[in-house]
């Protein structure tokens, strides 16, 4: 195998949707709007490759912009857990 290693940006991959880190204010606003605790959101591990790539820390909320076959585009959120 070649010794040359390619640098890989996982967000280039077709399967990986866009991930964004929410700021403290945005996160608070979101939780207020949904009227939930952050733990009630779906989770994402802090060791998840996508979470690592955007530098998310446990306690953060990640905004994910998915391409959806039904709605065209949907926004979901995941809460970063310490794992």
């Amino acid at each position, binding site marked *: *195998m070649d010794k040359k290693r390619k640098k890989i940006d996982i967000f280039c991959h077709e399967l990986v949707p866009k991930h964004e880190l929410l700021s403290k204010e945005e996160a608070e606003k979101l939780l207020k709007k949904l009227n939930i605790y952050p733990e009630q959101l779906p989770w994402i591990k802090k060791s998840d490759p996508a979470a690592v790539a955007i530098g998310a820390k446990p306690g953060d909320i990640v905004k994910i912009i998915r391409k*959806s076959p039904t709605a*065209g585009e949907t926004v979901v959120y995941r809460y970063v857990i310490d794992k």
Partner: protein
Amino acid sequence: MTENIQKEIDKKLKELQKNKVLPPSIIEQLREKLSQFKITKKQFERIINEIIKAYKLALVEPGEAVGTVAAQSIGEPGTQMTLRTFHYAGVAELNVTLGLPRLIEIVDARRNPSTPMMTIYLEEEYRNSEEKAREIAQKIEMTKIENVAKNIEIDLVNKRILIVLDPELMKNKGVKVEEVAERLKKLKKGEIIVEDNVIYVERKTEKLPELQRLLEKIRNLQIKGIKGITRVVIRKVKETNEYVLYTEGSNLAEVIKVPGVDFARTKTNNIHEVAEVLGIEAARNVIIEEAMGVLEEQGLDVDIRHIMLVADLMTATGEVKQIGRHGVSGEKPSVFARAAFEVTVKHLLEASLRGEQDILRGVAENVIIGQEIPLGTGSLELLMYTLRRKEEEGSSG
């Protein structure tokens, strides 16, 4: 005049998208359809209002049992699936598990699928010629010494191992004699002597078992390729007119590092591998793609929303969880719901030992108790203001 209306329409559509009244896909369709007709502003407004009304009617209502509907919608077509395990998937030479066994594999989130498979796309300079594609294929395919040898045996008289290489096989796999010798040298198990297509491994030992062990080791020695990829098939895709590699075995993490591989499109059917390399969101997409692929291949028309719900549930905790005892169903917070699923006594016993509480929020536990389930009409509860009563109590007391 018409331009004015066009601008008006554009503005309104953008506003709808921004305020999230309608999803982008519907707005896109609207824009396309509207451009075909000449309409007045009034007509446009009526159309929009009708569409918003229809869209709202089509939405799932709060308290609707989406999970049950999804289970039925996947379960019923599932009964019609063939139990036949193997079927060819685009490439005749590769067997891939499909049908019900594969669907079970997906929802069970097995760590290793029974037939792991990768679809590897190539970068521009490699995808157009078969020769270039073969170059990459040779780099990826795991080649052991036994794959290029005509014969490997123990020479008992001279206490050495004899490896007769097959020139044709070597050419096919892109292996040179020197490479094999080099790899054998690294083993440090004796002197290597190369004679044309024959390699001798001299081992100064009297013990036969030792020689036999060495023989086994040499047989399985990997010369080149990526671990786990046992076979590579090159195929030309008609639609895009490019060469694509299909593999038996899967190793996403290594394959994407190979120069010449188009990382962005390369896929595997191993869900856990995707979760590790590309993250939980990508794993969710693979679950949907794989499940839909199986259903479509069987000619079953299941709405993708049901599959999406399953995939969402399986990935909700940040890692891929199976639907079943060791995953979603086994981790429900309610004791009764868990007991109703599988291994009833174990759950009841453990719950009683731990003094667990059941807040009776789910469906199963309320059915057991004989209460109204919190779904549809039952999801509403009546609350009473006790202010007046307090006042009354206060005045009388």
